[in-house]
């Protein structure tokens, strides 16, 4: 394989995968706007992968923007901070889009709320000097990350300080910032890279400093040339490399990003750090810069509200804990033809049945589709065409696993490596018989008895 000159190199993409219609046009040109503070937010006590938090405030306590409202002693956990100023109310239980029932602390707004341009400036704008970063102690970065309640903003919401904590056994050589945003429709990461590249770069350098990585890369899909240009100009010959990735779903899955950008394979059942890589999302990088350089916790995030079922698609800087209804109302509401409301992207997101549930740290977007785009039901028999195997980024044979899971034939499911599936949904997307393949596999993974 020949390697093209640096800068123009298009990396060989991971094999297989799919090309769903991108739908980014709806919101790609909408600058990030600040959502006015809603009258009430609901701070979920479990917004991350790991142990849930306990509320640290009582009913009727006054809280200011950025105060801790929930915390936990476990290592794999992250505190929750108030995203508006106001009065805490009695903790209640909410059902998040992913089906989890979690405790939430409602906060009723009162007094002065920072909003509009001032809020955006506070979170993303202003100067982001990278000059002093070399002098910062890695432990200090990790501590600041933990205290800021930082989790992966790409969707999985894994506590960031866990990834950044150094481990003598597995030295890290590469820090990969993931700006692929391969989910159709979503443009939150794109707008962030385009409008505010400085905090992303600062966060990348901070994360690299924390883990001791020498190589720092930002990977962006080639359907975002303007973001790539902006980042390259912002880097200006610095030590961060901007790599252009082929546009293909699921390029933003960390195993696929690593394979395509570095040519390394994350072992099945393992983590990127097993092969010396730490991956953080661009939004996480920006939040990391804010946490370390400005000492501010994670209270806001960029959320794309988009799709043909939304009157005015927008990219919004949203207080975490805002009910989805406030986001949709701010975008002039749903159109008559709206058929499905999705928290996250259309390939891996969760359907919303109740608009009063709160946005969490992992919410990257709200996509509203109409009946025209929604995947059709009407399953027919598998004709064994093997298209699911042709598109699986992990080289699995989905039809065998899914049908084995349906009939609870765990031996067969195991023989076809069911546990290796990462549930990206390429198989169900491609299946001509409309068999809910990944859905069946997901069920199977939960139902299979552990020996």
């Amino acid at each position, binding site marked *: 394989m020949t390697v093209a000159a640096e800068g123009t190199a298009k990396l060989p993409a991971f094999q297989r995968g799919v090309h*769903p*219609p991108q739908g980014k046009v709806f919101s790609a040109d909408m600058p990030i706007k600040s959502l006015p503070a809603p009258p009430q937010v609901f701070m979920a006590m479990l917004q991350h992968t790991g142990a849930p938090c306990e509320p640290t405030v009582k009913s009727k306590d006054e809280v200011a923007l950025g105060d801790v409202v929930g915390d936990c002693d476990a290592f794999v956990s992250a505190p929750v901070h108030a995203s508006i100023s106001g009065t805490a109310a009695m903790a209640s239980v909410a059902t998040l889009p992913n089906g989890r029932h979690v405790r939430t602390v409602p906060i009723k707004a009162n007094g002065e709320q920072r909003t509009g341009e001032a809020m955006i400036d506070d979170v993303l704008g202003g100067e982001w000097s990278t000059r002093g970063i070399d002098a910062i102690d890695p432990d200090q970065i990790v501590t600041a990350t933990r205290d800021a309640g930082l989790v992966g903003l790409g969707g999985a919401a894994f506590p960031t300080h866990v990834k950044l904590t150094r481990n003598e056994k597995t030295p890290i050589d590469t820090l990969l910032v993931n700006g692929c945003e391969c989910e*159709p429709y979503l443009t939150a990461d794109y707008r962030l890279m385009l409008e505010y590249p400085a905090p992303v770069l600062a966060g990348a350098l901070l994360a690299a400093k924390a883990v001791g990585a020498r190589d720092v890369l930002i990977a962006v899909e080639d359907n975002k040339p303007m973001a790539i240009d902006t980042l390259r100009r912002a880097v200006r010959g610095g030590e961060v490399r901007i790599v252009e990735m082929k546009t293909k779903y699921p390029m933003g899955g960390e*195993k696929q990003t690593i394979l395509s950008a570095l040519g390394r*394979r*994350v*072992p*099945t*059942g*393992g983590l990127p750090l097993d092969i010396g890589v730490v991956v953080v999302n661009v939004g996480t990088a920006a939040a990391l810069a804010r946490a370390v350089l400005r000492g501010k916790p994670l209270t806001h995030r960029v959320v794309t509200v988009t799709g043909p*079922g939304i009157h005015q698609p927008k990219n919004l800087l949203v207080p975490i804990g805002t009910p989805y209804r406030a986001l949709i109302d701010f975008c002039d509401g*749903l159109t*008559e033809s*709206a*058929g*499905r409301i*999705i928290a*996250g992207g*259309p*390939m*891996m*997101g*969760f*359907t*919303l*049945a109740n608009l009063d549930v709160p946005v969490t740290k992992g919410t990257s977007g709200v996509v509203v*589709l109409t009946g025209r*785009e*929604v*995947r059709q*039901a009407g399953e*027919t*028999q598998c*004709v*064994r*065409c*093997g*298209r699911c*195997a*042709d598109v699986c980024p992990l*080289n699995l*044979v989905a039809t*065998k696993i899914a049908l084995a899971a349906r009939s609870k034939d765990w031996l067969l499911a*195991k*023989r076809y*490596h069911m*546990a*290796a599936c990462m549930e990206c*949904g390429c198989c*169900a*997307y*491609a299946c*001509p*018989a*409309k068999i*809910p393949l*990944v*859905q069946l596999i997901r069920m199977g993974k939960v139902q299979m008895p*552990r*020996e």
Partner: protein
Amino acid sequence: MTDKTDKPTAPAGPVTHVAPSPHVGDRSMTTRRMMTDVLIALALPTIAAAIVFRQHLLWQLLGCVGAAAVTEALFAAARRKPWSITDGSAVVTGVILALSLPWSCPWYVTGIAAVVAVVLGKMIFGGLGQNIFNPAMVGRAFVMIGFVGAMGAKAYVTSDPAIDVLTQATPMTVWGSEEFPRLGALFWGNTNGSLGETSAIACLIGGLFLCIRRTAAWQIPAGVLLSASVIASVVDLSSGETMDVLKHLFGGALLFGAFFIATDPVTSPLTPKGKFIFGLGIGSLVMLLRLLSNYPEGVMFAVLLMNGLVPLINRWTIPTPVGGPVPVRKT
């Protein structure tokens, strides 16, 4: 409508649904679309056959498709299952069967072949997607053994010179003799043989269309043609004759079988590697039967035999996940 007030009022605003992800699907490909693709691709060999065999093609086609469709409908009714004819698979089976029959096939033999193809080939296994053997080939094999006279070499030839080609023997029965047609005739299709197999160019173009549409996996015809060419070349070299390779490829049903029969997704393996092995097996068996057996042609038996091996091939070719096998949990 007078009872309007009794109905529950429609909810205000749009109605949304709840379902697990992915929420979008590839609309360009459905099972019916795949069947339509096959029919489009089969149009070329059908037209080529119509030019050579004229009304004989029409009768066989009508007989096979009609009998297959009626059988499918009756069977669906008997099983109280939905009207499965709309998936198009019975029509595809009918057309492929018709194109694999001799022009002179009597109506009752045609009918029996079509009924057996649908019932024994597909329905008794549980319908589309469940069958092990290629339905059209099951039907053909049944009448091949049951009605030797109607299906044998003599069935292809007539002394009535209304259609010139029909006075010649089929190419594969006169292999090596003076009567063997020239390559040009094999290529364009101006020879005798089963209805759809005569024109190499028609099979090639139709087959390439299927591969480009990815309705057929290219690995299967590639495997068939590769192994057949290699074996034919070896025979070629050892016998000292020339051009045997092309004669083997263009003569008989090899191309028709490679592109239209072997590529049936239901009865071929799942993975690209498995498909290639499957193709290699068919090509080798065809050559084995052509060179060593008493049958002049071996596509049908080769396909059926390899169909039987598909579960085994699938098991041999389970791909290793990217990142290696799932680690065994320590207990």
